[in-house]
């Protein structure tokens, strides 16, 4: 324990930056950007420091900070992290750091944009480091709500309106517009948080009036309570994690959101849902976890295949990436449902790998859109000649997406599928592998059409610049991390292992202390 409350620094730095931006940076766009970058940098350094100095031998929760907030209700400000949340914080830092660069060109009302973005990030950090369920929930809400404005104001609407019977059925809802997407996303996620709140309150009442994760973890809850609270958590967090059939907000939301918000939402916030299921669902309710593993895994398989098939059918580039997230989040949930150390490690690793990868994808799509002003795949073609840097980065992200060795995606999928094979439901392997195969189809199809195919005749697409200046920073960081963790997966797996093994031991007592 050090004197510096490092986790609070990491969590609140973006918030303070947001306050400064709102208070002092009116009509000074460069000050807005540099202040935001400073906030993100402080968080990045803090999370790197925490990640490296986390004592892997001692394991457990470290860097603990605690003081009472509302003692009469057992609410306290309790921050601590273990190997899993340390990795998630690192992911958040990397994405927001790159995200600040990726939104450098936001012109309209940039002050509010950056302030909301930073507020959102504070919420995300807070969720990962809070061990008090109540404070956890507060941060969760902060992470969800700014999305409404971020998408509604700065988002973009799809170019193709629904036609035929869909136009008739959905025309009046404004489907495909950013306003529709923002509302849909917000309502879905708040609907989920209603489930989470009920679950948390039930544990609070059943667990002797405490919101502390550590106290609740030592409780043995009644099997019936466990069973329905687990379902409440699974549905509530699962909505954010994009589980089928509650995923439909995600393609709409991610496709309509501005670049940095898509990066953050698909890259980090969906992980927050999976993290919630693993941390609260599996961590607090061991009996219910084994009881419902078949459901979690089964739906994950649907996610993988259904998401991939949907991605294949899209003509809008952003929707392809958004559906690929649905598919990859299936891998995350599948790994968790295997109840094996290998699978759960793969799951956590996939959270990280997919976060970086999808962040990179959305950054690239944002760049392409900014330069070509189109998201329609079949209008574009042969961009690789004009923007070789973007094309290269897209290919690397794509290869990671389909699980090519030496990228982070490979490690994640390999571990997950290995876990699935050794689990009680070894058939889960097949939908998983099928998903990986389908992924290669839609990724390569997009890469071929946009970057490698015949050059488009459209006069708008004749002179497109490659990435420039700060845009390189976003791409460079993400590509570097993606390859680094693909080549040296131990960087992530060692600390994660210290968190997943004790977690699984509570569920499946036969899990060995070390693999």
């Amino acid at each position: 324990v050090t004197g510096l409350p490092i986790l609070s620094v990491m969590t609140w730095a973006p918030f303070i930056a947001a306050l400064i931006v709102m208070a002092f940076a009116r009509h000074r766009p460069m000050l807005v950007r540099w202040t935001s970058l400073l906030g993100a940098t402080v968080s990045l350094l803090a999370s790197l420091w925490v990640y490296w100095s986390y004592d892997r031998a001692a394991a457990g929760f470290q860097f603990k900070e605690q003081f009472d907030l509302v003692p009469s209700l057992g609410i306290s400000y309790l921050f601590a992290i273990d190997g899993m949340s340390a990795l998630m914080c690192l992911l958040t830092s990397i994405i927001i750091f790159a995200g600040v660069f990726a939104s450098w060109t936001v012109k309209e009302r940039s002050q509010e944009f950056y302030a909301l973005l930073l507020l959102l990030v504070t919420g995300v950090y807070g969720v990962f480091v809070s061990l008090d369920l109540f404070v956890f929930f507060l941060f969760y809400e902060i992470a969800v709500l700014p999305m409404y404005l971020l998408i509604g104001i700065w988002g973009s609407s799809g170019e193709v309106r629904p036609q035929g019977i869909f136009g008739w059925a959905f025309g009046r809802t404004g489907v495909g517009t950013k306003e529709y997407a923002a509302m849909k996303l917000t309502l879905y996620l708040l609907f989920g948080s209603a489930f989470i709140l009920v679950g948390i309150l039930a544990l609070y009442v059943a667990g002797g009036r405490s919101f502390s994760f550590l106290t609740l973890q030592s409780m043995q809850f009644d099997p019936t309570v466990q069973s329905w609270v687990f379902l409440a958590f699974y549905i509530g967090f699962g909505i954010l994690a994009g589980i089928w059939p509650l995923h439909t907000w995600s393609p709409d939301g991610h496709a309509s959101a501005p670049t940095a918000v898509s990066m953050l939402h698909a890259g980090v916030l969906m992980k927050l849902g999976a993290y919630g299921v693993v941390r609260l669902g599996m961590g607090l309710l061991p009996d219910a976890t084994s009881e419902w593993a078949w459901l979690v895994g089964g739906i994950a398989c649907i996610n993988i295949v259904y998401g991939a098939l949907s991605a294949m059918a899209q003509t809008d580039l952003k929707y392809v990436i958004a559906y690929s997230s649905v598919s990859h989040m299936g891998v995350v949930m599948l790994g968790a449902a295997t109840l094996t150390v290998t699978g759960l490690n793969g799951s956590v690793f996939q959270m990280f790998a997919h976060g970086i990868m999808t962040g990179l994808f959305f950054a690239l799509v944002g760049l392409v859109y900014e330069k070509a002003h189109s998201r329609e795949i079949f209008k574009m073609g042969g961009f690789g000649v004009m923007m070789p840097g973007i094309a290269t980065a897209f290919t690397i992200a794509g290869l990671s997406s389909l699980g090519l060795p030496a990228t982070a995606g490979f490690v994640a999928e390999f571990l997950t599928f290995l876990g699935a094979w050794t689990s009680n439901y070894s058939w889960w392997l097949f939908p998983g592998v099928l998903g990986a195969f389908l992924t290669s189809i839609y990724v390569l199809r997009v890469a071929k059409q946009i970057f490698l195919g015949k050059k488009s005749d459209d006069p708008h697409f004749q002179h497109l610049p490659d990435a420039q200046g700060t845009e390189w920073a976003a791409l460079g960081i993400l590509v570097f991390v993606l390859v680094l963790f693909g080549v040296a997966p131990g960087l992530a797996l060692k600390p994660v292992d210290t968190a997943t093994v004790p977690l699984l031991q509570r569920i499946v007592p036969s899990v060995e202390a070390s693999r």
Partner: protein
Amino acid sequence: MMNGQAGMPLAPELAVFALAVLVLLSGLIRPGRAIGWIAFAGLVAIFGLLMVTPEGQVLFGGAFVQDALALFAKRLFVGATALSLLGSLTIGHANFHRRSSEYHFAMLVSLLGMLVLASARELILLFVAFELMSIPLYVLTGFIKRDAVVPEAALKFFLVGTVSSAVIAYGMSFIYGATGGTALALIPQAVRDGHPTVLLGMGLLLAGLGFKIAAFPFHMWAPDSYEAASTPFVAWLSVAPKTAGFVAIIRIYLEGLGSTAEIWMPILATLAGMTIVTGNLMAIPQRNIKRLLAYSGVAHIGYMLIGVAVVSRAGIAMLLFYLLAYLFGNMGAFMVVETVARSEQSDSIDAYKGLAQRSPLLALAMLVFLLSLGGIPFVAGFWAKLYIFLAAAERGMYGLVFLGAVLTVVALYYYLLVARRMYIEAPVRREPVPTPGLLGVAIAVCAIGVVGIGVYPAPWVALAQRIAATLFS
């Protein structure tokens, strides 16, 4: 005859009465804007008086008690009235100024009714106080006759209100018949005995009170009268009489009953659930902000009814806390509505288009109020809902918790529709919305209340819990 000797008995009530007379008389001498100021200054003084009024006086053989609940409610009433006057002081109508003394007299008399009601522990006094509170409300609803809608709404309110009064009186007669007395203290024993006439009487009484607080299925008058009446008055109407209704409900149905009161649980829980669902669903299609807030208010009444329905000390405490949070959130929202309506001449939610770019602070205040009403963290309404849910969860009523939590999302949908107009859509006109100074003060007070309670709810929760402990064991 008196315990707790410090201070004159009935001082706040007498002061309000004196103030009302003063306002009426000065209207005879010199009508005009100054009367509003007199009323406001008097109310501030009375609020101060209430802060130092000691607890524990019992007058008239227990018919009038100055207990913790009464004082809490009285401070709420006087505070809400003062806030409402801040809003109405800026009304520019010549007509309004000419009749200013009538307006303020009616409001103060209604306030007097509420003050007495909060302390009444006897059926006759309760009924008289109820009427004293209600009759001026009908007058005030139709006070500014802009168009034909106004008298219609006032008449509707009047008819519904008098019918409810009749039902209350009818119910009380059964209770009197069964208990042989008019003291509320007689009720617990009669309920414990399971006297059917008492139960019938209390059932009728609940229907009458349901009218007053605008609970389903007696909520129809609310949207119409809100739409018709002047907004600063509506801000008050939406908060103070409903608080009074809840005080009466607590006094009649919970105080001193202990676990016997559990016989009300099924009916109150059903009422709460239906009210939440109706209010929230009916609010969705509204395109007039006042009607929208009226229906959302109905939904809030439903949430507060959960606090009654759980029949526990925590439930009462959380209901009181909810009332406080609702006061600031709702009055604040109506004050913003008044400000925008002055400038745009419209109560349509389309009048809020681009407000964030025209008047960022005003839009931010409205957003904060709406988020508080919607139950979002760090503003008062979140804690209110959370505590209500917690109280329900402790009693194992997870169905109600779940229903309430899901419909909170529905509520956020229509609140966000307003937020969307303010923040996302482009303004029709560019120039800022002028905010009259006093309205600005009222909005600022409400915003500070909402955010202050939201950031640091602990002392208010402790207060509410202390009051509840005196009422229910």
